[in-house]
Every structure is written in C-alpha cells, then in structure tokens.
C-alpha cells in the first residue's frame, strides 16, 4: 500500500528541468499563434501607409519609411467610406434595438406566462437557431423587389432581426429564470398589471442581459455579407462590408488606399474590444451555450 502511494506520487512530481522545458515549449506555441493572429493586422496597418513601390518590393514587411497619409484621404474622401459606416451603424443599431425589445417580450411570454403550447413554441425557438439564412433569401428578395423595397434600410433590418430573434430569446429566457418570482408577486400586490410587471420589474432587472444580446447581435449583423450584397446595389445604402468589397474590386492595383479602408473599418471594433473584452467574451459564451 505504501509503495503504491509512493509510485503514484512520483508520477506527478516532475524534475524542475523537465517542467522548465515543457513551459518553454508551451510558451513558444502560444507566442507563435499570437504572431499568426497579429501579423496580418500589422501588415495591413503598415501597407495602408505605403505606396505601391514600397508594398511591391522595396519594403514589404517593415514600418513605412515615409508615411503616406494621402491613402487615408482617398479612402475616406473619394470613396464614401463615412457613408458606408453610417449605413452599417443605422442597420446594426436598429436591428439590435428591435431584437432586444421583441425578443424580451417573447421571452417574458415563454418564461413567465402560463399557456397551452408553451413547450412546443419553446422547442421551435431552439430549432430556429439551426435554420440557415439561405432558407429565405429568394422569397424575401422576390417580395422586396415586388414592393420596390430593395436598396433600403428595412430590407436588411427586418430579416436580420428575424434571424437574430431565436438566440436572443433564449439568452433572455436564461437570464429571466434567475429573477425571483416573488418580485413579480410584490408588484402584483402593489397593483401592477402584466405590462407593469414587465416594464417596472423585469426590464430593469434584465439590463446586464441586454448588453449580452446587443453584443451578440452586433457581431452577427455588422459583418453580414450575403443578404447585404444581394439586397443592396445602390452605393447610397451600401453597408461597410458591401462597400469595402466593391471598393476593393475597383482598386485592385492600388493597395495603399484599400489598406487604409480596411484599417478604418477595423479600427472601431478593435477599440471597442479593448475596452469591453470581458463583456464581449461573456456575451459570446452566453450566446453559444444558452443555445
């Protein structure tokens, strides 16, 4: 017995030297992967300040010797980038607002109210998450073109909201279950109606989850390409993704300005991430696990 214990122990106490080599290996791997993640961004940042001569041979990976800020001028001025930004902002912003309101109402009905068929609807919401957007792209396209509503904000906002609802509702249900029912009862005794309970009890308690749903919806909507590229073909309504995609198609020889446009498109997300990384990590987890 004693011998056995001894053997087992010797199994996990490693010599310091072995431990040291293992740590070095681990950190080498972690740092290599870090560089694999960062290097493309570094490269993009530097070539956005270079002219073609530097990008194409003189100075491929170094910092720019002369900083060509005019790349940014042409990306921002000539190419309407601010407009695309605004469009993406409007579309994503309204999608988030609508998703939060509608999903929270649905979550309230599914989590608190008592009615027949609740279970069935609940499982339909879960099923809804698996449905790919390809499913409805053609019918929506046909309806939009019949109503002459292609090239409009609502042509993106409404489908985005519909496809964001399932996950959002599930996240809200997850949070709502943790709000004690006694609070509802107290409000009920104080004379609140259903609507009152929703607005004055549930809604304020749900604030943290609104950020979660908002962030999750943002990640999905801000980058969406398929709907955006098919429903929008007027530059006035281009979202950032479509705008940059089109830009790059027309400037294949001029890498500097495209690089500048890519940096401008990336910058806000990175800044936001630097401040909100913890909350963003939480949201991504909630979005995946609650589903």
């Amino acid at each position, binding site marked *: 017995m004693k011998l056995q*214990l001894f053997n*087992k122990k010797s*199994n*996990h106490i490693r010599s310091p030297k072995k431990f040291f080599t293992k740590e070095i290996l*681990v*950190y080498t791997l*972690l740092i290599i*992967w*870090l560089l694999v*993640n960062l290097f*493309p961004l570094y*490269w*993009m940042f530097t070539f956005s300040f270079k002219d073609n001569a530097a990008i194409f*041979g003189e100075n*491929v*990976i170094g910092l720019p010797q002369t900083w060509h800020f005019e790349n940014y001028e042409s990306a921002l001025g000539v190419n309407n980038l601010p407009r695309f930004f605004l469009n993406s902002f409007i579309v994503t912003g309204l999608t988030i607002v609508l998703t939060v*309101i509608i999903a929270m*109402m*649905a979550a*309230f009905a599914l989590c608190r*109210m*008592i*009615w027949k068929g609740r279970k069935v*609807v609940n499982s*339909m919401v879960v*099923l*809804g998450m*698996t*449905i*790919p957007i*390809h*499913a*409805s*792209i053609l*019918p*929506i*396209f046909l309806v939009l073109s019949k109503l002459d509503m292609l090239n409009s904000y609502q042509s993106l906002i409404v489908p985005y909201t*519909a*496809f964001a609802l399932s996950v959002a*509702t599930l996240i809200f249900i997850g949070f709502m279950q943790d709000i004690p029912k006694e609070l509802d009862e107290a409000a009920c005794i104080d004379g609140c109606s*259903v609507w009152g309970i929703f607005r004055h009890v549930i809604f304020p308690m749900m604030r943290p989850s609104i950020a979660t749903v908002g962030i999750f919806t943002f*990640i999905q909507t801000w*980058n969406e*390409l*398929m709907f955006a590229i*098919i429903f929008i073909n007027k530059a006035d309504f281009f979202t950032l*993704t*479509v705008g*940059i*995609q089109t830009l790059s198609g027309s400037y294949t020889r001029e*890498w500097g300005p495209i690089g500048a446009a*890519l940096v401008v*498109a*990336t910058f806000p*997300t990175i800044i936001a*991430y630097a401040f909100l*990384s913890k909350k*963003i990590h939480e949201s*991504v987890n909630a979005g995946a*696990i609650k589903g």
Partner: protein
Amino acid sequence: MNRIYRNKPAIFLFLLPAAILFIGIIIVPIIMSTYYSLHDWNGFSDMKFVGLDNYIELFTSTTINFPKALLNAVFFMLASVFIQLPFSLLLALLLAKGRKGSRLFLSVYFIPVLLSTVVIGQLWLKIYNPDYGILNVALNSIGLESWTKVWLGDRGTALIAAFIPTLWQYTGYHMLLMYAGIRSVPQELREAALIDGASESQINRRIIIPMIKPIIKVCVIISVTGALKVFDLIYILTNGGPAHATEVPSTLLVSMMFLRNRYGFGSAIAVILIFLCFLVAYIIRKSFKTEVD
C-alpha cells in the same frame, strides 16, 4: 398572481411581434422555397411544375457539379472538427491553467472573430497574391522559389487556401467557449485528482474533457453547420473558382439564383441545405447523448 400570468390577450400581444417576424421571414419563405424547388422558373416566365427534376439534376449534372460542392463542404467539416477544434481545445487547456499572460493571449486569439469577414478576405487575398503577397515573397526570400504558387488560382491548392482563413478566424471562437467551460470545472475536482496523484495530462483527459463535453458538443454543432453554410470568405476569395474547385453549396446557390436566374434550381439547393443542417444537428445531439448515458 396566476390570473395575471394567464391573461390571454397579454400573452398574445407579447408574442405577436416575434411570431410575425418568425413566421413571415423564416417559416413562410421556407415553404415558398420548397414550392419553388419543384418548379422550373426564372422569375419572369410562367412557373412550370417539374416535380423532383431539379433535385435529380442537382445530383446528376456534371457541369453544375453540386456533389463536388457538397464534398468540399464535407472536407471543410472534417478539417474543422479534426484539426481546428482539437487545436482550439489545446489552446484552451494551456490557457485555462492560469499561466502568466493568459489573459493577453486569450484576448488576442479572439480578435479575428470580431473582424469583418470582408476585411479578413481582402487581407488574405493580398497575402496570397502571386506576385506581391507576403506568402510568396517569404518563400522567395528563403530560397524556396519552387514552392511559390498562384495559391487561389491553382486547382491543387485553391481549396485548402480558401479554407485556411475561415479556420484561422474561428479558432479563437471555439477556444473561448472551451476556455469558459474549463474554468467552470470546480477547482476542488482538479485538486482532489492532484492529491490522488494524477498527472496533468490525466486530469485533462479523465476529468476536464469529460466535464466539458456539452460545450464540445456545441462547438461541433457550430462548426459542422457552419461548414454547410460557409459563404463569406469563399465568395470573397474565389467565388467558387477556379473551375468549381472551391465551390461550396452556398456560393453555388447564389450564382444559380442571382446570376443565372434559375430560381427553382437554386431553391432546391436551399431546401437541401436546410435539411442537412437539421439532420447533422440532430445526429450530433443524439450521438453525444448516447455517449453520456
């Protein structure tokens, strides 16, 4: 209290907006797509009922080559499940031990997930550029000129080259999910195992991985259905070319519907995609369940 919860008009009103969107934007269009898929239709002339002809053509036509697109998606699925996910798990295990700098590594690894796929696509187009891209420049500078290729234009390398950016982008996503799972494994379990003399790799294999099985299941579902749906990066990098070498179901769907106006045929692809997404999600849920039981 229950009287308030059973208030029928209120239930109706709370559900109404979600129901309208869900039915109007998702359910009805699925039914319409199914209906279109049984017809020959270009959007202008009359619809002609053709039964299952679209589906038959889909699986037999060698010019459109849908089976090839499906096969590419399956290849992508396998690469994702057997290379990307294990690597994500490895990173998550290494970081979850609370090494110095874990927080920094974690945050940086997640950055690609947040970048717009268009940005990533354009960036990788430049990385792969045959004349000036850093990949070929790097190969040239270390004397491996013979290894340089037109990465996205060569039928031999295009498929792998087109998938690498997607795998690169989402590794951080899966890593984050697994990391959160590992951190939620009670510390006492780990300590108890250490006292019993378990080694680090034994703890990982016997305790942590079984405990985070539900999360691994989620990751597998996300990456498998993601492989079926993959569109953005392929569309940007190759749009299915050269000669269908990188075609995936959704690029084929878009080009059939919106370039060739074959609405019925494109809808058949959509219907198959929905069906496959449900099917694989169901199979994965089932197979993980039986293992746990």
